[in-house]
């Protein structure tokens, strides 16, 4: 087979061209490393989150009425579950927010007469570890530690109310 001698082949004889693959690969490794670092930077920043913002929604579930109001659309999927089949309608009583720093505790006094304390125990990657205490007056109803994805919802419910049952939807975001 004839080999045409071009300027390139004269400048770079065959033994040199065989080195192109490792040379190219080695040049891509730092490039890929930098790219990966840039891509992973948000996740790293998320892993270093030391604070969280929590929303607490108080929902009244009633055995009369009909439907889920638009303001509870973010919980519609959950409220349509069979576990809530005993209730005919729902109403958002109030929404509060707490800004929590790592290790600190925030508390929200709800108009329903309940108090919810939240403490940010840990924030790693996209998950938050929280300590929640729901009390009615002096009586602690539930005391729990849980881990949840940032922006995930925990429902605590079944608390007596003159018009039905009260549920609390807790949603926290890290960062």
């Amino acid at each position, binding site marked *: 087979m004839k080999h045409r001698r071009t300027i390139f082949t004269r400048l770079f004889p065959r033994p040199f061209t065989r080195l*192109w693959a490792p040379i190219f690969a080695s040049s891509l490794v730092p490039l890929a490393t930098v790219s990966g670092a840039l891509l992973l930077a948000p996740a790293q920043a998320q892993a270093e989150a030391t604070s969280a913002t929590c929303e607490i929604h108080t929902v009244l579930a009633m055995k009369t009425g009909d439907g889920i109001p638009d303001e509870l659309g973010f919980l519609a999927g959950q409220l349509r579950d069979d576990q809530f089949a005993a209730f005919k309608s729902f109403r958002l009583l109030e929404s509060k927010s707490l800004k929590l720093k790592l290790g600190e505790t925030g508390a929200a006094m709800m108009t329903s007469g309940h108090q919810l304390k939240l403490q940010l125990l840990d924030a790693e990657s996209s998950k938050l570890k929280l300590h929640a205490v729901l009390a009615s007056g002096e009586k602690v109803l539930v005391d729990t530690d849980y*881990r949840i994805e940032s922006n995930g919802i925990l429902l605590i419910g079944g608390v007596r109310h003159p018009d039905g049952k009260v549920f609390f939807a807790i949603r926290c975001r890290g960062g």
Partner: protein
Amino acid sequence: MNPVSEIENLHAYFDGELPDEERKAIEAMLTEDAEATLAELSLLRQAISVGLEAEAEKIPEARFEQLWDEVERTLERDARLQQAADSDVSLWSRVGAFFKPLWAPTAALAGVAAAAAIYIGSGESEPTENTPVSVASNDGPAQEAADEPMPLAPLQDDRIAANVEADEMPSNNEAEIQRIEFGGKTGRIDRIESKQGITTVIWIDDEDETLDSERAL
């Protein structure tokens, strides 16, 4: 000896089949008589020629044609291969051949990038709905310090904070309950599977009625 008998004697001589007397006679004739030696060699050449012709006659003519056709096909094939090798290769073929050794490292890097993208993508799920959240009542009391006993100081106006992120929807990932204590009689942990994902529900039983649950605590 006549030529036929001489040829036969030579065959017998080289085969070692002659009696001693005849063998010695032939040897003496070959060594002493140059003319006789040349004559014998001529006879030997003739004998070989006759033998080869006889062998050639045994091979059918078709066999020669087959052999020649095979030779021609081989020559033509070699010529075609040589012509193809000498012909100009397309630019894309040359470029492809040049970058061929790079496929493996490039594919490996692409795999790493894909894995990184999947890892990052699995970090936090996007909200699935876009229903705004609104506040249905005024705020209650608020307090920043958590460890103080109840009643707590009023919170700031939280409606603003609630409305700021009203367009974002929760990720609805299941909570991992690591510890739980119910102050009332009983309680249970349940889960709701919906299009939005899995949501953990903590049911508090602060009444006398019994909650029927397989996971009652």
